[in-house]
């Protein structure tokens, strides 16, 4: 990532809890929000990012630096994204969805959404509610009706004991 020509431009980003981060402009403009600020010439001083906390911003900057260091190789970028997200917990992922949306980083948004969905896909309704902090707003009657409705899902499914 060393700059070949002169000094690389760095930007200073400020999180909503007043942490300051220094990041190469070439990496930061992965965020369309930041890129627009740069293009409009309002990225000279400190760029306040009012919707992102320091912890999340640190993580997003790690991602920005990591992904922008990879040349145009979609396969490598994909495996970087997978690796980057592999150790993130749900709170972090949720924070990152919000940050990616605010910063307008569609590739990160997509990767994080896919990651959350991937983890969810193998889990029960109860697990998802518990883990995601979602309140069950079905009444017991509705819940029973729902169970009845989707009973067929388990009918006719062949056993796979022999596998």
């Amino acid at each position, binding site marked *: 990532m060393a700059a070949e020509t002169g000094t690389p431009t760095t930007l200073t980003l400020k999180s909503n809890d007043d942490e300051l981060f220094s990041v190469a402009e070439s990496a930061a403009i992965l965020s369309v929000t930041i890129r627009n600020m740069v293009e409009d010439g309002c990225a000279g001083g400190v760029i306040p990012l009012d919707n992102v906390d320091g*912890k999340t911003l*640190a*993580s997003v900057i*790690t991602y920005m630096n990591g992904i922008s260091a990879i040349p145009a190789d979609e*396969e490598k970028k994909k495996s970087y994204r997978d690796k980057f997200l592999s*150790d*993130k*917990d*749900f*709170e*972090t*992922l*949720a*924070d990152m*969805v*919000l940050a990616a*949306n605010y910063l307008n980083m569609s590739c990160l*948004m997509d990767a994080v*959404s*896919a990651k*959350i*969905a*991937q*983890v*969810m*896909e*193998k*889990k*029960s*309704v*109860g*697990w*998802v*509610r*518990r*883990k*995601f*902090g*979602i*309140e*069950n*707003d*079905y009444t017991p009657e509705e819940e029973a009706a*729902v169970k009845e409705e*989707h009973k*067929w*899902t*388990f*009918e*006719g*499914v*062949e056993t*796979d004991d*022999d*596998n």
Partner: protein
Amino acid sequence: MGNSLRHYPNDGSPSDPWQITPEKTDRRDESIVQTPIADTEEGNSEIYYDSGSSTNIASLPDEMVFEILLHLSAEHIYSEARFVCQKWYDTTNTRNFIHEHLRRSTPGLVIKCGNDPMKQPITVSMRRGRIEISKFSYELKGFYWYGCDGLFLHRDSSGSVLYITNPATNRHFALPESVSSTSPYSCSFLAYASTSMAYKLVQTYNCPDKIPISRRLVHTQHLSTAARQLLKYIPLTIEGFIHWTKKPQGTDRVVTLNVETEVITETRLPVDYGSERLMYYLSTGASLTLLVECSEFSWGFWNLKSETGEWAQLPDIDLESRKGKLVNFVSENRRRCSCPVNLRPVGWLNHGEVLVLHGSRFSGVCVLYNVRTQAIDFFMLDYECITHMFDSHRSSLVSLD
């Protein structure tokens, strides 16, 4: 390896048998974050996230929940996710969501048994870089006839009633008798017109005086006689276009119906290949491709832009140099028959990135060839079947209620 069955675990079981590459995701210590950033969870690996504190999935704005749910399979949304809470039920039940979900779904293949039409079809798809083989979790009434963007058109065993089924939601309905009545002169197909977000049923008639007056007609007089001949065959439906081709020996043209505008056109092939060469018309899910046999293990490769009727030539698919390896693999893995290994292109996975080739007749060996990375992989179809038929498929939440 057995033929994996798709099932819907609700117990968070760590090993899902339908995954060929198992992946650990059921660990509860996901809160250990190996980054220099301070972890507010104090590294306690057994803590569940308190729904009251900081951000969680439940507190995300609607459009982000929408975005996350789009990444789930139709089957999972229908049988699990929509029951998490009413907001999720409502979100996934909108026309907009269903449309967007279908648009983003990764097309795969449905494979049916050619010699036993009553046998349940299976699906093969590639999700997140892995091959998933699944069986539909319910009995399809009668036999599978034609599939399009998540819906199946099929007849009951007597052949008299035509059904439309969504295999992902196990919902089906019988078409009215006036539509489904069999006539030796008519065939029925389905296509999804994405701009108007509507499925359309298309029927071809060989005999003009048999056309019921209730139908909206697409006239074909402007087509050449050779083109009209093609309408007798089973077409391929791709992204709002129905393409009539003739398989496997080619003709010099393709007839395409734009289901949105209901305009039918014919397109000449880019090169006259004569009638000797084997031609394979395959759907990538987004466009029609043509593979023309050059030698036993290589094919010329073309892609049709449906909107403009233009053919674009792509680099040949040449597996001649890897012939030895392929022949060995297919020979070793097939269960019966010692007839020659004869790779036949049968479909695409992952948006036209991975070509599926069937090992030979009477064998369940399928070869996967990634045209970008040139990597080769294999999977087995293990149900007892003499011939297999391959068709493009994607799963959809479209409601038939």
